[in-house]
Structure formats: C-alpha cells, structure tokens
C-alpha cells in the first residue's frame, strides 16, 4: 500500500480545511442511500483518516447506516471554484464529538458562513444561514473517523469521477 503522496495530501488538507460544502453518503442493508451534510472535518497528519462532524439533529439515518454498513462517500466542494474531491472508505469509529472536535465544528461553521457571504446570494438567505450557524454551533455532534480507501476528483466536467489514488494500488 502506498500512502497518498505529499503534494496531494497538502492539496486535500488545504481543500478540506478551507470550509468547503461537505456531504456524507451512506446506505442501509437494503442499499437505500442516505445523505447528510458534514459540519466540520479534519484530515489526520498522515492522511490515512479524516474526522467528520455531523450535527445530531440531522444525523440519525447516517449513524444507523454506518453501524450496519461502514462504507461511505465523503464529498467536499469549494463554494466559489466548484473544485470537488470525493473520499471513499469505511467508518472505523463513531462517537460523541469531543470538546476539540466541537471546536473544529464551530470554526468550520464560522468560515463556511463567511464564505457564503462572499457569494451573490439573497441577503435574507445569508441572515437565515447565520441563524442556522448559531443553532448548529449549539447543537451536539457526532464525530466519525473515516479510513480513506480511494480519492476521486469530482470537479464538474467530463473528468469528474477520475480516481486519483487508491489504498490498494
């Protein structure tokens, strides 16, 4: 197994820690997919795992799914450039978020809403996003640990879906 090379790791870290829009897809025993938004993420130093924070009020279907089928897809999309990466792998741990992980969530929410404000969106929407940020900051969260097996480019266009790295390659 080859590790993710340093330039790609730096790129993924810059991308994931830059307050992108983030999604987590999972599925139940009957292959019915569920999707939820991720409200904080941090790539481990060695690039083998990423920690994902999910707001408890919206995360129940995902938590139920990953306890039965740990395979997930995590997607992060830059709000302005639409540069997108997808990481696929398995959830190896899911617990209540620690104080440090809750702090990661709060930093992400603040940066994300600030990034949204730079886009040409209706002022009422931005005001409501700020209200949601405050509600989510106050909400409890789960922290999931995703072991990365594959990395894909998913930037919109004909090359979306191109595999950049695989654990077994």
């Amino acid at each position, binding site marked *: 197994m080859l590790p993710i090379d340093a330039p790609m790791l730096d790129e993924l870290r810059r991308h994931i820690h830059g307050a992108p829009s983030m999604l987590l897809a999972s599925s139940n025993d009957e292959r019915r997919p569920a*999707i939820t938004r991720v409200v904080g993420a941090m790539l481990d130093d060695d690039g083998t795992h990423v920690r994902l924070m999910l707001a408890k009020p919206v995360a129940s279907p995902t938590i139920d799914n990953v306890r039965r089928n740990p395979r997930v897809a995590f997607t992060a999309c830059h709000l302005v450039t*639409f540069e997108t990466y997808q990481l696929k792998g398995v959830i190896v741990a899911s617990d209540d978020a620690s104080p440090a992980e809750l702090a990661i969530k709060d930093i992400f929410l603040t940066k994300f809403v600030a990034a949204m404000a730079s886009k040409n969106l209706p002022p009422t929407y931005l005001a409501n996003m700020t209200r*949601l*940020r405050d509600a989510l900051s106050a909400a409890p969260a789960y922290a999931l640990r995703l072991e990365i097996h594959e990395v894909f480019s998913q930037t919109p266009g004909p090359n979306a879906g191109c595999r950049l790295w695989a654990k077994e390659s």
Partner: protein
Amino acid sequence: MARLPTEIRAALEGVIPASIGTCSLDGTPNATYVSQVFYVDPEHVALSFQFFNKTVRNIEENPRACVIVTDPISAQAWTLEIEFERAEETGPVFDQMEMQLEAIASMQGMQDVFKLRAAHVYRVTEVRPGMGAPG
C-alpha cells in the same frame, strides 16, 4: 408515493445547488452535487443528466436515491427519497430544464461545462423537512 408540498417549490429553482446520494449494488455509496432538481408534478422531480458519471451508473444498478434541496430564502432544507422512473431526451420537461440549466450555468460561470443530455424523471417516495444545515 409521496406528494411534494407547495412550500418546497422555491428549493427547486436551482439557486442553491442540490446534493444527491446513490448506492451501487455492492453497497458503496456515492455523494455529489446536481445542478437541477426540477419540479415535474406533485409526485415527480427530474434531475439533469449531463455526464456518464458514477451517479448514473449507480442508478442503472439501483434506482433509489436521496436528495437534499435548500430554499434560497429561508435556508430550509428538504430531504427527498426518490426512485428513477424514466429518461426524457425531448419534450416539455427537457426543454424547460435545458432553459433553466443555461441560466444556472451562466450564474455559476459553467456555460462551457453544463450541457443537458436527458431529463431523468424520478418518483418521490418520501419528503422530510430538515434543519437547513450549512455544508
């Protein structure tokens, strides 16, 4: 079968990109963004098919998908459980989606990237209002 509530219509205008989750038959999920979730009638939506990507391949294997759409004013999010019914390459739904996609592409600077191949029509099986979560 579920019915789309009237108040969801603003979330289907394409202002805030929607997200979609699908799953292959071997149980591997996929998460991505979609340009359009288009209102067809109270029981159906159509998604834009632009590229032969993993979402399309998964839907060919397993027709079930989960979509999140967001109201561009209230920031209210909605989760839709949907199942693929048919692809339309001509007709009024295709024409309206093509026009709306051009507007979305222009808004996002994606005129050279977005091109509608077909309107994929899905039956809505469940609708849940959710906490509009950033992300």
